[in-house]
């Protein structure tokens, strides 16, 4: 029976072997002839022994169970020994069948997991190019701090009269108020001339506060100062939504190939 040897080695245990035997009989587990199954099982064990193969303990335990079942079958019901502690319902046959059915279900589930396992080997996750955002350097067309400096300096000229120095100012502007003010103005007009920012300004301190507010907003990238040409009028507007070259704003439009947010090679 060389076939047994080969088969035996792949059986995961006595339940596996029993399932194999049942399958060979082509019967439903529930309808299996346990007596015949017991005989076949024990034959296998014997064959293994004859071939000097090591028989695992679990197989021997199962063989004993099957022998017991078989022996019970040979007796009429009323003569069957009632084992102490064994209740009426503890039918070893039923217990074995229950175990076989359960094991069979898990064996099937394992097969399905095996299919999933194999399938996953062919599934590849998207691992995209690492995104890298360019350091947000000042854009070519944005006004430099020098331009702002010159501009504010010009505005300050208006207040550069000695008499101002003793004035007590009525207005009480804070930087936060001016920030609100600027943001409101820009949302209404979307583009403001730098000089317009100071149009209604009445004191040097208000110029300073307005200017501080503007600087902060620029730093926070809420606003950009744009100078179309050297020494031209600076304009204030909202930054473009993305860090692309603000070609709509001023200067030569940059015709770059579309390559947003791809990483470096």
């Amino acid at each position, binding site marked *: 029976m060389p076939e047994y040897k080969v088969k035996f080695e792949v059986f995961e245990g006595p339940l596996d072997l029993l399932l194999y035997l049942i399958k060979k009989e082509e019967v439903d587990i529930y309808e299996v002839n346990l007596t015949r199954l017991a005989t076949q099982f024990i034959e296998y064990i014997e064959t293994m022994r004859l071939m000097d193969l090591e028989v695992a303990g679990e197989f021997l335990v199962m063989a004993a169970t099957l022998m017991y079942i078989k022996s019970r079958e040979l007796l009429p019901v009323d003569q069957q020994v009632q084992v102490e502690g064994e209740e009426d319902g503890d039918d070893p046959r039923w217990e074995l069948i229950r175990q076989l059915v359960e094991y069979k*279900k898990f064996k099937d589930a394992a097969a399905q997991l095996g299919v999933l396992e194999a399938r996953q080997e062919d599934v590849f996750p998207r691992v995209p190019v690492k995104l890298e955002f360019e350091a947000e350097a000042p854009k070519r067309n944005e006004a430099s701090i020098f331009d702002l400096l010159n501009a504010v300096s010009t505005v300050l000229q208006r207040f550069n009269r000695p008499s101002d120095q003793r004035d007590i100012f009525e207005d009480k502007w804070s930087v936060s108020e001016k920030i609100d003010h600027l943001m409101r103005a820009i949302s209404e007009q979307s583009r403001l001339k730098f000089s317009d920012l100071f149009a209604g300004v009445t004191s040097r301190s208000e110029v300073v506060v307005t200017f501080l507010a503007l600087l902060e907003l620029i730093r926070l990238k809420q606003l950009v100062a744009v100078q179309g040409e050297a020494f031209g009028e600076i304009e204030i507007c909202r930054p473009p939504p993305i860090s692309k070259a603000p070609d709509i704003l001023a200067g030569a439009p940059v015709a770059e190939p579309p390559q947003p947010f791809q990483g470096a090679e």
Partner: protein
Amino acid sequence: MDLKFILEAILFSAQKPLSLKELRDVFSSAVEHAEGNETVRGLKKVKEEQLTAALEALAKDHDAANRSYRLVCVAGSWQFVTQPDYAPWLKALVGHKARPPRLSQPGLETLAIIAYRQPLTRAEIEQVRGVAVDGVMQTLVERGLVEQLGRAEVIGRPMTYGTTAVFLEYFGLRSLDDLPAADELRRIPIQKPESLATVDPGLATAPPEQLIQPTDAPPAKAETPAQASPSDSASTTEPGSSS
């Protein structure tokens, strides 16, 4: 801008699968990068339910588009993956990556039992499989597919085991509910069929009353009270007991 597309762009650019929590973090910290952007601000505190709904809709979109990739949720995290059909070229693309060897048959069986019945003890696993599982369990734990969960409140307080997130990833499952036939297998109610009681051609005698599980019968084995109970109660309805 549609939440769905924003999620798409994020997942499309992510280096790893993202959980709902991670996605929410992206939405909340995006505000730092676009303070004035209405959409960004509006989504700052996007709810998990909104995200889930949008993600499901997005996954559906992609399924319907029937392209070479799809959006999946594995172990609670979302990612784009390619369809298995394209594996030959993708294997060529990524080079021969040494994948862990496939699980052995005992490994798969043991894993299946743990997956459906967790938490459970080693003795309970062995009872289902009918063989010792020491070596197999060690492999499963080493591969991170299975972990100790705690201790069972029975004599000896043995360790209980369950599956991990790695398990879900390994099989591409969204959650344990995704396990094939999960409902059926979690608690198999094995009904004793009438045929067993009345027709058993191979038996010299057919003592049907012995096949009946008494209602008050203690579980067949101490380790499997949960499994035994359903079949117990099922069998009480059987008519054969009066014969």
